[in-house]
């Protein structure tokens, strides 16, 4: 085609391009800038090359935090996805129960991250928190401030409480789009509850599940606010995830170079893992 389709349409995209430039591209470039130079303030910079990157990739501290991140994301996905599917399957499909359930489900999603952290920080305290106090009253030794295991449990339970609803809502949207005829045909074919799930509901939820897994993976891998508020990364370094470590390094120790290098590695890892997830799941989808 010789003619241009409609040039003016590009002007419409301009504001978005500018916005993305300011909010993402420019900060990212700044970080790249920091990651290859050394600075002691005063706007003096010295070329460092790949030094920070090498330092990062050889530091135990980085890999430990990374390991914690992977374990955390794995546990989160292993709990939230099945739990989300289970709740969605048991939600009412019609009647007054639908709006009630939807509002209840949406509630945790509407609360800001730092507030969620604060709620759980107080909730879990042994002296005044309902959860912590009750647990110690029944004789369970629970203290997220001192015990790494308890700290992990608290952070995970908090995330499950906060984000399972997202999985539920996505799955529910997939479920209600299944025409009634499918369930009727399954009844006629004598399918069990499990067969209906395996051969009708799961295949139809496939796409939304892909989105749910991707979102929950990326989000949990980047977790920062809630554990920062509740545990501050402790006890010790037990809940110091990459993001918390990054802030410690950049703001706490003012090691801008290594911190910048770390955030770029971090960014690339998330990008890579998301891409792997996406291709694996879409390929699986196409194959079927």
């Amino acid at each position, binding site marked *: 085609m010789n003619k241009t389709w409609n040039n003016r349409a590009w002007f419409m995209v301009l504001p978005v391009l500018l916005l993305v430039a300011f909010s993402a591209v420019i900060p990212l470039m700044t970080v790249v800038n920091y990651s290859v130079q050394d600075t002691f303030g005063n706007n003096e910079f010295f070329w460092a090359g790949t030094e920070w990157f090498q330092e990062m990739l050889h530091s135990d501290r980085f890999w430990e935090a990374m390991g914690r991140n992977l374990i955390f994301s794995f546990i989160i996905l292993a709990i939230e996805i099945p739990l989300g599917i289970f709740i969605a399957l048991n939600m009412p499909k019609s009647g007054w129960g639908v709006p009630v359930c939807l509002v209840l489900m949406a509630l945790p999603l509407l609360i800001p991250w730092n507030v969620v952290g604060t709620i759980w920080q107080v909730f879990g305290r042994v002296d005044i928190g309902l959860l912590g106090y009750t647990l110690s009253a029944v004789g369970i030794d629970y203290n997220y401030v001192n015990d790494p295991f308890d700290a992990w449990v608290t952070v995970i339970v908090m995330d499950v409480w906060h984000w399972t609803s997202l999985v539920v809502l996505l799955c529910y949207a997939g479920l209600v789009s299944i025409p009634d*005829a499918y369930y009727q045909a399954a*009844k006629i074919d004598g399918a069990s509850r499990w067969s209906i799930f395996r051969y009708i509901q799961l295949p139809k939820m496939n796409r939304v599940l892909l989105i749910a897994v991707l979102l929950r993976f990326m989000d949990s891998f980047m977790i920062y606010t809630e554990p920062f508020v509740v545990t501050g990364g402790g006890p010790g370094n037990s809940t110091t995830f990459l993001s918390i470590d990054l802030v410690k390094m950049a703001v706490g120790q003012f090691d801008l170079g290594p911190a910048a290098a770390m955030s770029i590695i971090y960014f690339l890892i998330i990008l890579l893992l998301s891409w792997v997830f996406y291709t694996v799941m879409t390929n699986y989808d196409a194959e079927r």
Partner: protein
Amino acid sequence: MARIDLDHIRHAYTANPTSPKDYALKEVDHTFEDGGAYALLGPSGCGKTTLLNIISGLLHASHGRLLFDGRDVSHASTQERNIAQVFQFPVIYDTMTVYDNLAFPLRNRGVPEAEVDRKVRETLDMIDLADWAKRRARGLTADQKQKISLGRGLVRSDVNAILFDEPLTVIDPHMKWVLRSQLKLLHKRFGYTMVYVTHDQTEALTFAEKVVVMYDGEIVQIGTPAELFERPKHTFVGYFIGSPGMNVLPVEVDGNSARLGGHTVELPGAAAGASGTIELGIRPEYVRLGRSGMPVAITKVEDIGRHKVVRATLEGREIAAILGEDEEVPAEPRMAFDPAGINLYADSWRVEMGGR
């Protein structure tokens, strides 16, 4: 296969029906004979799908009993009733192969695998999909998917009936012919009891031995295709079956003849005791255009290939007539009614003339 008795079935979707208006199905008392091919025909909202779902057990009727071979199944579940149903939009398990789709209802019932294999292969041959057995079901065309839906019913040797809910809606015209004749063949060969719901008269008439015409929650007429065509019991049947539908004209009856405006039409017999609003019904196929009869004005001629539909007016009343492919509209057209095609209606219900 089974005989299905609908014993004074009524159904309302609301909890506490009070007036007849609340009933989607007013009162149906009918028997589907063992091995018969039936069609439920009517416009949308006439209750035909409600009736079908009551038979399959997807709905439980608010009143009345449903019997399979004399056994009361009114409260039995869909699975216990052992019926097969093909829906408007093909329902297939799209992660499974064609083979596994057919095997599914058998495996669910714990049939031994050797028996499953034998039955599935037999069914694949019946529905002409033997070459597709190992294919994923999702990539197939609409008509193939519909055959799989049907096959999942056929594969069970003990089904009581096969029910169809407008199964050809999403099928292209050419494939409709193929699928329909295949259905007919299966019915002939294996003697299934089949009930077919549709709004399409051609599908209903060509498929069924007996057509049940429904309107507004009630059965208006049950009859063979020929009966519905030649002797519609109600003007609605005359209108709904045939295209164009029956011409219905207000007349005054006097013994063996009827006065239509300024003309007199001979009736095939005397109408006994007809009172109320009297109308004469004549199908376009029985209207003759020629040089004798009542003078008419032609408003439009539609050449639709194998015949022509002529729209004419007789003293301001519209009448449709059908002309053969090679026939022409005469210059000064006159219209006559073939007595064999004349029916008389009093308050929309057919009255007998001369004992028929």
